[in-house]
């Protein structure tokens, strides 16, 4: 079995070959699916837990605090301890709640983020499914999450939850437009919806640089809209601790609450990795067209670390937003989308089309 950290496609194809030789195609595909499922599941758990830890530390440092520092060195095992606590907590059944939908909601939220994870290129060859409509698929699947939030709010039979869910619905329906249009701007530049092609097209420079002004505007709009898409501060009206106790997940306890919590952080990870893939070149190292020596030095860092690094930068920016800005009111939220982001985005698409037509991009 060949293992090359710079190109994992040989590794994955050798696994495929071994399986194909030893069993029938049906079982080979089944085993591969199970393996990918386990890999994504463990990745999900680890990333989710450590994003919670990272968020608490970042938040603490921004507020002149220390953050978790008791469980393990620098509080490194704090979130694991929290998870164990949540696993052992009682799941409180809610009287008059719609039992079936109430139990279904957290799974819909978490499955939506799972499905999105499958289409994201983590490194060269480390890519579960390479759809030819990859970015469209990710957009479509992440929007399913809002159904889970709406169901959670509705089935809880609680006014706070319902208000939170309705706000979340209004918010996601509007911000989906901005996310989609800012990604369309990049699709115009790359000429493809397939994520692997998009990454490959950034070999000589990330789209953020090759697309210059329109790509930069699209990136900023995407950052704002994606923060709103994930229901994070300053757009966390769906939870709004001070007004709605906890919004749509008020009535959830124990591990079901943890599912919502994990899904929120995973959604943040997913939008950050989409931002990294579409604007910052995904796993592609920092290349400048023509600088051979520089490009070769950059190639020494394995693609997976490039991907993780870029995603971490975007995640940090989103955390920075959350711990700096005050929460918006619902009318301000919709004003921002419909009066500012959407017109800017539409003008930006025209500019981008023009740039691509005239060949003004690099």
């Amino acid at each position, binding site marked *: 079995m060949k293992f090359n950290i710079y190109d994992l496609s040989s590794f994955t194809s050798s696994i495929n070959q071994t399986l194909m030789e030893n069993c029938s195609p049906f079982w080979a595909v089944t085993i591969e699916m199970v393996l990918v499922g386990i890999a994504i599941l463990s990745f999900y758990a680890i990333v989710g837990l450590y994003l919670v830890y990272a968020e608490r530390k970042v938040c603490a*440092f921004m507020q002149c*605090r220390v953050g978790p520092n008791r469980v393990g060195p620098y509080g490194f095992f704090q979130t694991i301890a929290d998870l164990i606590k949540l696993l052992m907590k009682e799941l409180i059944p809610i009287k008059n709640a719609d039992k079936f939908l109430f139990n279904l909601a957290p799974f819909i939220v978490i499955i939506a983020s799972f499905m999105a994870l499958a289409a994201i290129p983590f490194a060269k060859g480390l890519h579960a499914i390479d759809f030819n409509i990859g970015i469209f698929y990710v957009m479509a699947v992440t929007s399913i999450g809002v159904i889970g939030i709406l169901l959670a709010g509705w089935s809880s039979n609680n006014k706070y939850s319902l208000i939170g869910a309705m706000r979340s619905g209004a918010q996601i329906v509007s911000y989906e437009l901005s996310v989609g249009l800012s990604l369309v701007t990049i699709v115009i530049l790359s000429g493809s919806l397939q994520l692997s092609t998009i990454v490959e097209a950034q070999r000589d420079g990330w789209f953020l640089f090759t697309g210059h002004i329109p790509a930069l505007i699209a990136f900023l709009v995407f950052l704002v809209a994606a923060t709103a898409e994930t229901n994070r501060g300053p757009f966390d009206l769906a939870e709004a601790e001070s007004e709605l106790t906890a919004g749509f997940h008020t009535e959830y306890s124990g591990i079901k609450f943890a599912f919502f919590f994990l899904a929120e952080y995973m959604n943040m990870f997913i939008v950050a990795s989409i931002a990294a893939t579409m604007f910052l070149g995904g796993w592609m190292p920092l290349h400048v067209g023509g600088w051979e020596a520089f490009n070769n030095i950059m190639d020494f860092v394995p693609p997976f670390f490039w991907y993780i690094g870029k995603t971490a930068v975007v995640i940090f920016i989103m955390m920075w937003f959350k*711990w*700096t800005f005050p929460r918006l009111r619902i009318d301000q939220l919709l004003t921002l989308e419909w009066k500012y982001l959407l017109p800017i985005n539409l003008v930006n698409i025209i500019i981008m089309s023009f740039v691509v037509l005239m060949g003004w991009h690099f």
Partner: protein
Amino acid sequence: MRSIINYLKEIFGTVRALLKGMGVTGYYFVHPREIVTQQYPENRATLKMFDRFKGEVVMPHDENNEHHCTACGICEMNCPNGSIEIISKIQLTPEGKKKKVIAKHIYHLGMCTFCNLCIKTCPSNAIIMEQTFEHAVFNRAKLTKVLNQPGSKLSKGDKK
């Protein structure tokens, strides 16, 4: 035309204001020296409580085991929740006069709200607030303290 200029002005003004806010939090993020958290068990040796911190009522005694308490009972009367009990006894002075002295100044730490009224009203400044704070005990009875030390007597300077 003017409305478009105002629109753009508004956008850039907003972005500038938001970046300014992010600058503040970003500054704190990269300057861990600004952290104000006291990490308690580690800094126990150097930890100094602020001046107005009220930990517990104590009765200071000097080197001759003498205090200033005249057993007047004003602190007991002023205590809003009965945390102080004064038990006094009558003693004969060498001149043959009868005199009230303190037998036990009982202080229930568990009931105290640290309102400072006893210290404020004490006419002879016999009791003060100490800045200790590690009051946890395994038995509630240990929270009842006798403030005057055994065998102590009224300081010579304070004549009744």
